[in-house]
Each structure stands twice: as C-alpha cells, then as structure tokens.
C-alpha cells in the first residue's frame, strides 16, 4: 500500500511499508511533473500528444524545433538532396547553438523558416520527401 499525505506547496509525504519519500508534484498544461530526491520525471498528460523535446515527427519527414529558438543558419533549400545526420538547420537559444540534423536521407520538399525567425517547438521547420 502506498499512502500519500499532502504537506502543502506541492509536497507530499509518500509512505510504503517502512519507506517514505518526500515528493513534489506539479501540473503543467501538457504534463504532470514529479520530483523526488533530486530526480525528476515528466508524465505527459493523456492525449496531449506533445512534440516537446523531439526534433522530428510525422513519419520522420518533418523537421521540428525542439524548443523556442532563433534560426541562425539554413543549410538546405527545396529540391536539395540531404543525408541522414546532415546538419540542415542551426538554431540558437540561450547563447548556445543547436544543430538540427536530418532525420533521414531524401529530397527537401519545402523550407518553412527563414534565417532570423523565432520558432516555437512543434512547428515544422523543413520537410523531406
């Protein structure tokens, strides 16, 4: 049996047999976050279908931004052949460059961003066919 006792401010005392943990739990719009002993887990809300943290999706043909960022370089144009692992776009966030690599080999169908754009996670930057 696991017992959960609220302690306030998002903290809970969780007891199972002789063991106990102090656990913090908080809800974000798309997930529930949990903290215990310095470790964190993010449990996606059912049906939220979040694309956060993923640079690819839709059958690996769309390249997406993993986080809000500024586009600094685009190394591919429509009609161009790219290979899996090629750095096709470079984003910048928090003074760090984030290389976005091609999820597969193919021909660039369309580029949906421009140098200097501020892009959001889940937005398609480029399509490959």
């Amino acid at each position, binding site marked *: 049996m696991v017992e959960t006792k609220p302690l306030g401010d*998002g903290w809970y005392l969780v007891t199972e047999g002789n063991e106990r943990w102090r656990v913090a739990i*908080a*809800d974000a719009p798309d997930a529930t976050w949990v903290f215990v002993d310095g470790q964190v887990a993010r449990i996606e809300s059912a049906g939220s279908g979040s694309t956060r943290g993923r640079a690819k999706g839709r059958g690996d043909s769309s390249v997406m931004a993993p*986080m809000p960022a500024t586009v600094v370089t685009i190394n591919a144009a429509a009609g161009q052949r790219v290979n899996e692992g090629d750095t096709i776009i470079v984003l910048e966030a928090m003074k760090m460059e984030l290389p976005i690599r091609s999820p597969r080999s193919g021909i660039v169908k369309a580029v949906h961003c421009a140098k200097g754009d501020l892009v959001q996670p889940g937005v398609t930057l480029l399509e490959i066919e």
Partner: protein
Amino acid sequence: MDDQAVTIRRLLIANRGEIARRIIRACRELDIETVAVYSDADAGAPHVSEADSAVRIGAAPARESYLNIDAIIAAARSTHADAIHPGYGFLSERAPFARACEEAGLIFVGPPASSLEKMGSKIGARALMTAAKVPVVPGETPSDQSDKALTTAATRVGFPALIKPAAGGGGIGMKTVRDAAELPGALAAARREAKASFGNDALYIERLIEQPRHVEIQVFADAHGHTVHVFERECSAQRRHQKVIEESPCPALSPAIRERMGAAAIAAANAVGYRNAGTCEFLLEGSGDSASFYFLEMNTRLQVEHPVTECVTGVDLVHAQLRVASGEALPFTQASLSQRGHAIECRIYAEDPQQGFIPQAGTIVLYSEPQGPGIRVDSGVKAGSEVSIHYDPMLAKLIVHAMTREDARRRAITALRNYAILGIRTNIPFLLQILEHPQFVNASIDTGFLDRESAALAAAIPRDLPPAAMAAVENHKQRISTLGTPGTPGTLGTLDPFSTLGNWRG
C-alpha cells in the same frame, strides 16, 4: 568614512536574474535605493518587483536591452541614479560602457575603463603580465623560423610542448611534442597544415600544461593604494569552458603556492591600475609546494562564483564593491583576511543532461529551495517564472559551507536532493552525479574532467523514479479528475480536501 568619499544614494543595476537580486539585497543593507532595468521578457521577473523602481529598457533580445548602453544610461538619468552596477556578463567588461557612465557623471561600480581595456587585449595583457613578473604559459613565435631556431625555442619553452600555427586557431595544425626527437617531424607537419589552412607557415611554440586545474584569485583594490587578495577559488569542474561547480579553498594549493599566487594576482591588478573587485585566473600544474601556476586572464568584474569566497572569508564582496566605488578605503586589510571551512557552489542550469545538455525554456510550475545551516541559494527565478531563450541558462546557484570539504560535499548533495524545480529540466541530477564521482570525492579533477566524463555521468542518472513516487502521481491525477478542475500548480496539497483518500497499491 574617508574625506574623498561620496555617498551612493541610488544605484541602477544593469543586469538581471540572480546577480541583480544579489546586488539589490546588498543595497537594502546599506540603505541605497535600487533601480532595476528589464527587457520585455523580464517584466514579471523577481529582480524587477524587488527593486525600489524599475525601468523598461527594450525588447527581449539582449542587444536591444541589457546590451544597449544608451538605453541604460537614459534609465539612470531619468531615475536620478548616481551609480551603476554592471553585475557580470552583458556590459560589465566593456570599456565603452564604463566610459559612458563616467561621461554621464555616474559612478561605475567596477574598475576604470583603462583597466578594462588593458586586460581586454589578450596579447597586450600577456606583455603587461610578463613585465610585472607574473608567470604566463611560456611560449614564443621566433622571428627565425628555421628548424634550428624553433628547436632552440622549444628547449627554452620546455617539454612537453605544443606547436601551433601562429596565424591559426581552433586547434588546426596543433602538434604535441614530448621531447626534442619528435620535433623535426612535428615541425614539418605543422608547417604544411599551417600553410594549407592559413596561408602562413609561421609557428608558435608553447609549453603544454597537462591536466591543469583552474584556480583563480579574488583581488580587491581601492583608490587609496591598497590592493589585497581574498584567496582562491578552484573551478576545474567545467563543461565546454562553462563552469559547473566551484569551491574554496582549492584542495591542491599548498600555503606557499597560495601566497605566491596571491602576490602574483596583486601584481597583475597593480600592473593595470586596477580598482574594485577582480579575479585573476591561473592554470595550476601539479600540487603541493612543487606546483607551478600560469596567468590566464583577468576577469574585470564580480564573478558568478563570488559567494564561495564570501562563505570562507566572511567578507561581503558586494558591500565592499559599493564602498570602494564611493571612494572609501577597503573595509579589510590583507592581515585581517583568513579562510575558514570549505564552500562549494553548484550552478543550476536550465538544460537537459539526458538529452545532450540541450537548453530548456518554459514555465517553472514548482520552485522549492533547500534550507538549513550552511545553505545559501542565489536565485533569479520563482514559481511561475518564464525561462526564456534569450539569456544565459543559469537559473540559480546553490552555495554550501561547512567545516571540511567532505562535510560541504555531503551538504551539497543533501541540499540538491531537496531542491525541486519542476516545469523545465535542470542539471540537478547531473550535479549529483559529479558530487558522487570518486575523482570529485578525492579532489583530483582537472579542467578536462567534465569534457571526458560528462556523457558517462549523464548516462548514470537514474531513468526511473521510485514506484511509490509514481503511485503518488497517480493519486494526484485522480484527485484532480475528482475535483474536476486542475489545481493551481504547486498549491494542490494545501487545497486538497481528499487527503485521506490517498491509498494506492504501488
């Protein structure tokens, strides 16, 4: 108080985040009014609400706000501030900013513009340090580039040596030479690569410092001819040149070397007519009395890691900065300073160590700092804060202080295990891995440690939380669906009427 002293009544802080809050706190204690500045991204930030007044200086990108000299000077004028504290980063080491403050009749809480310029040029600083007898990494570009002359130069510089294209950078054409016998082959190869990459085959020969530690000395100078050092900080735990954990004292520094390094840092500061707080960075090679050290550069500002020095010396460096900036003499002398106990600082970054340290942006939905004896948290965020992509990913610093290094290490671990930040990923699990690593435990890390070990340390972070904790999450979700409306983040526990409903088979 000194005759020449003026009083700072109102200080504008040209910065954001934890350092802005740190400076506001010091001003409160000294009865100085504070003016915060903020970009559009920071309108709701803690440093803005905590200051006595606040001025919007521009759009979110730093170059349009925190790096905009005209906007900051205008904000200081419109609020009748008499001084500006630049914090670290942004404009803190830019001579034109210090000069603009001077021209606007504002006290710049930092060194004179001329010191910033002298230390800002790597080549110029090296020449000045050599003249001041501050040891620098031995190196030279002989005007005679024959094998014979380069061999003589290498012998002067010492082995192991590093051969670099004089016109180069980025590690291209660099060769390590263990002894003179390896020189002819290495010189020929380095020349070919230098010629091919840079169109110039001139070579620079430098002593290779193997497995160095990064040790820096805090210095402080006033306008009355006093310059002191406030001991060292060890900052070898850095990932891609970004410091992660700092501590004081440095476990590898013997009293004799500490004294010599302190004297070298004072000589470096005096060589550029320094005033206020600054830091001389050195590479330390070896340990004990046989160690050698070499000047790297001087950081002409307050450092991120200044709290470890404050913990072990009891000095408030920001108070001292404000006093010295207003013309007073230093509030301490060399003889009055000593080190007591051990302090460790852990930088809390918004980054995901399990995803290649990718920076994180988003809303912090729960924020809960550790508390207790010897625990200090300097933070720039709170629950509800929006972490934006526009600035440095450092959210906060945890600083612990205890009698011994081992006690401080354990205190840091305990504190991090109670430091809950939810809504974005942080490096806290990674910090815990570093603090438990045998090489950190026995204080034998060098500046290459994290670059070698980061991937393994990140991979060692537990993937799964205890099943009971996950069961508690299920309980929590059920409560929310029972209540019908999601609770305000982080406050559900206090509102929850179903606290007795909390049984779940885990």
